[in-house]
């Protein structure tokens, strides 16, 4: 046990619960993984949608070339999903501070020095009252969680949005090839589907707006 124990900050009253596992993860790691998930999983959803729609479009356009240009809208809707992911990733990236913030925020308040912990083990020094409001919690852990979960929120909602728009777009291309009047009607379904990604983006922005790693 070295002075590195200073970053071990329990927020519950005891050391023996599972929350410690998550709090051991560096806040920087959490935040960056969240940014990675937001762009990576969104792109997965967009790609899924594009190949689903694209393969049907290519095949159907052989016998009905007129559908070529109109049905690219489905592909554009899928692409928009990836763009949402990129936008959120950029926004979240700007909230990442530098590691200089780390040293500032892990100062002792009698809460995570070796001496204090040893004397009060297994309980927190002072019963945990002062730990909740520590700088580590406020300036590092909170933004880290916010950024991570905003990333997860955006990434997965875009994943399912992309898959949904892709399958609908495939049906749209095939239906349009048979009967041109069906295109606009099925496009409405796709518009509703792409709203799903938008919901994720809105919630992600709201979640991450108070977060900033100073």
């Amino acid at each position, binding site marked *: 046990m070295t002075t590195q124990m200073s970053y071990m900050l329990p927020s519950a009253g005891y050391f023996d619960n599972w929350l410690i596992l998550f709090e051991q993860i560096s806040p920087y790691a959490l935040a960056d993984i969240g940014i990675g998930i937001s762009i990576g999983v969104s792109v997965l959803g967009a790609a*899924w949608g594009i*190949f689903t729609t694209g393969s049907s479009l290519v095949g159907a356009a052989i016998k009905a070339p007129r559908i070529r240009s109109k049905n690219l809208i489905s592909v554009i809707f899928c692409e928009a999903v990836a763009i949402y992911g990129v936008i959120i990733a950029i926004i979240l990236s700007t909230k990442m501070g530098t590691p200089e913030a780390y040293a500032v925020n892990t100062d002792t308040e009698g809460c995570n020095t070796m001496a204090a912990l040893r004397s009060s083990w297994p309980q927190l020094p002072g019963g945990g009252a002062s730990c909740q409001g520590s700088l580590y919690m406020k300036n590092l852990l909170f933004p880290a969680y916010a950024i991570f979960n905003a990333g997860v929120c955006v990434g997965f909602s875009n994943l399912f949005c992309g898959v949904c728009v892709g399958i609908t777009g495939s049906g749209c*291309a*095939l239906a349009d090839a048979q009967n041109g009047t069906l295109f606009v009607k099925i496009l409405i379904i796709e518009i509703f589907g792409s709203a799903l990604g938008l919901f994720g983006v809105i919630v992600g922005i709201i979640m991450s707006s108070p977060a900033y790693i100073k």
Partner: protein
Amino acid sequence: GILSQGGNTSPVPLPPPQSSCWRRKRAEMITFNLDDGFTEAVVRGYRSGILSQGDYSNLGQCDGLEDMRMHLAVTDYGNFLQNEPSPLQTMTISEKCTEKLVEEFNYIRCNASAELAKFLDYITYGYMIDNVILLLTGTLHERDTSELLEKCHPLGKFQSLATLAITTSPKDAYKLVLVDTPLAVYAQKCFTESQDFTELNIEVIRNTLYKAYLEDFYAYTQKLGGATADVMGEILRFEADRRAINITINSLDTELTKEGRGELYCNFGDLYPEGVMRLERADTQDAVRQAVESFGQYRELFQEDQFNRDKSLEDWFFEYEVKLNKLAFEQQFQYGVFYAYMKLKEQEVRNIVWIAECISQDQKSRINQYIPIF
């Protein structure tokens, strides 16, 4: 040969090797287009080119086959009859239409993924069986081999087909020819005798081969699971029932015994097992009617027959088959559309040939007895 499975002694042909079909059962919609999106879209494009009622009424009003050539040129068929010499014959129209169908099938087969290719190969086995029987019957009646080869369906041709002409007994035919083809598994059971071929012999062989093929195909589609299993299951069950009814009716008052007849029925289908049991014991047309009456979709089969002599049993079966095949297109992300397209196109060729025959034989009154598709 590499395709022979000579050691198999089970009564039912071996199932095809395991494929990665697990994902189809669970996640069809999201993974189907990975491999088969393009080919499905192509086949749906072909489907939109199937002749409509308007096309048929135009064809019906033609005065001669030259007129028909002109009318077919504006449909999806295009100028396929362009290079045919002038006194056109219905045989030529039939051949060229089938040729177009074969071209479309080959295009899809070339672009097919592994699983779809296996499915399409299953479709060709039916034609292979027809060709084998054609060759054996023709040789029995001492026809010229090259003439017979020309009549064979192109999708069922395989390399050693011509060698069948020199075989005299089933065992011979199996050892020399069939053991190297995909039909080996189906032929194991019925190609064991060493007596020579006879008329009855060949009919029984045809039906036994086809029964084994249908059962294998059905087991395969059910293994694929998901929407394919549903759609193809319905179509193939009807096929099994139709064969059961036809075999029964055609073998009333012939030398085929009831046990012999019983062995030709498939082991699946809506009529299986009770209807099939009753069909096996049927002696008269009436008994056949009673056997199938309790099955809703076949109830009107024999009633309609009595009131409307123009439409035969076969026509009713064709109509029902067309209905099931049209329904196959209602679902996306499944293989049934490929099978359904082949069958609908064949029906269309039969319709065109019917109209052509009516026109050339001057029987315009019967021209509307084709089976309308769309």
